[in-house]
C-alpha cells in the first residue's frame, strides 16, 4: 500500500514526529517547576495534535480537508487558553509571590 502519494514522505513520518512532540510536551508538563514552562508544554502538545490533524487531512481526506478546519478551531481555542492561562498565572503570582509549581499546594490533601 502506498501512502506517500506524489510526495516521497510517508504519512507515518508525520505521525512519528507528532508523537515525539506530544511526549516531549507531556514530560515537560509533569516535570516543570516554572508555571510559564508548563503553559509552553501545553502549547507543544496542542501543536503535536495539529500536525496529526493536518497530516490526516492531506493524506486521507484530500478533497474535503476537514482536518484543516478542525486545526483552525484548535488554534482558536489554544489562543483563548493561552490568554486565560497567563492571566491566571499573573494573579497567582500576585497572591503567592512565586511561580514554583511545587508551592501551589493549597489544595493538596
Amino acid at each position, binding site marked *: 500500500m502506498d501512502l506517500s502519494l506524489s510526495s516521497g514522505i510517508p504519512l507515518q513520518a508525520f505521525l512519528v*514526529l507528532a508523537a515525539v512532540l506530544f511526549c516531549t510536551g507531556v514530560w515537560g508538563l509533569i*516535570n516543570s517547576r516554572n508555571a510559564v514552562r508548563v503553559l509552553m508544554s501545553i502549547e507543544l502538545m496542542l501543536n503535536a495534535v495539529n500536525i496529526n490533524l493536518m497530516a490526516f487531512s492531506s493524506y486521507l481526506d484530500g478533497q474535503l*480537508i476537514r482536518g484543516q478546519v478542525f486545526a483552525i478551531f484548535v488554534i482558536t481555542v489554544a489562543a483563548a487558553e493561552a490568554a486565560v492561562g497567563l492571566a491566571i498565572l499573573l494573579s497567582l503570582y500576585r497572591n503567592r509571590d512565586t511561580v514554583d509549581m511545587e508551592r501551589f499546594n493549597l489544595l493538596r490533601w
Partner: protein
Amino acid sequence: MTIASTTQLICFAVLAFTVVAGALGVVLLPNVVYAAFLLGGVFLSVAGLYLMLNASFVAAAQVLVYVGAVNVLILFAIMLVNKREDLSAIPGLALRRVLSGLVCGGLFALLIRVAFTTPWVPGPEPVGEEATIRIGEHLFSDYLLPFELASVLLLMAMIGAIVLARRDVFSEDIATGESVDQGLIEKARTPLLLDRSGR
C-alpha cells in the same frame, strides 16, 4: 527519486529536526527566556510542515496566531513574573523524572505502534491550492455554528483575561488618606493591596 521528492525529503528532515530539538530545548533549558524563543522557532517550523502538507491558510494562521500572539503573550508573562528564585530542592525529584520519562516512553511506544499497524486507507488527491476556498466553504456552511461559537469563546476569553489580570488600584490609601505609589505593578507590594473588608 526525482529532484522534487528529494527536496521535499530534505525540507522535512530539516523541519522535523528543528521541531524536535526546539521542543527538547523548551522543556530542558534552565533559562525560561531562551525556552520561550525556542518555542517560537518550534511554531515557525510547524508552520513550514503545514506548507508541506498543502495547507497555506493554516500555515499563515499558525504564524499569525502562535508566533505573533501566543509567543509574545508568553514573553510578556515571563517579563511580568521574572523574579529570580532559588527553587527549593524536593525529595525524590530524580526518581520522579525517571518515572515520568518511563510513562512518556510507554505512551510514545503506544503511539508508534498505532501509527505503524493501522491499515491507513489512502484518500483522494489533495486539493492543493484550492484549500483556502474549501475552508471558507466549510466555515460558512456545515461548520457555521462552531465558527460563531468560536467568536463568542474568544470574547469570553478576552473579558476573562482582563478581569483575572486586573488589579484594583486606589489613588489614595483609604486609611491614611495619603497618595499611593502607582508604579508598575509587579514589584514588592507597598500599600497597594488594601483590606476592604471594613476593618
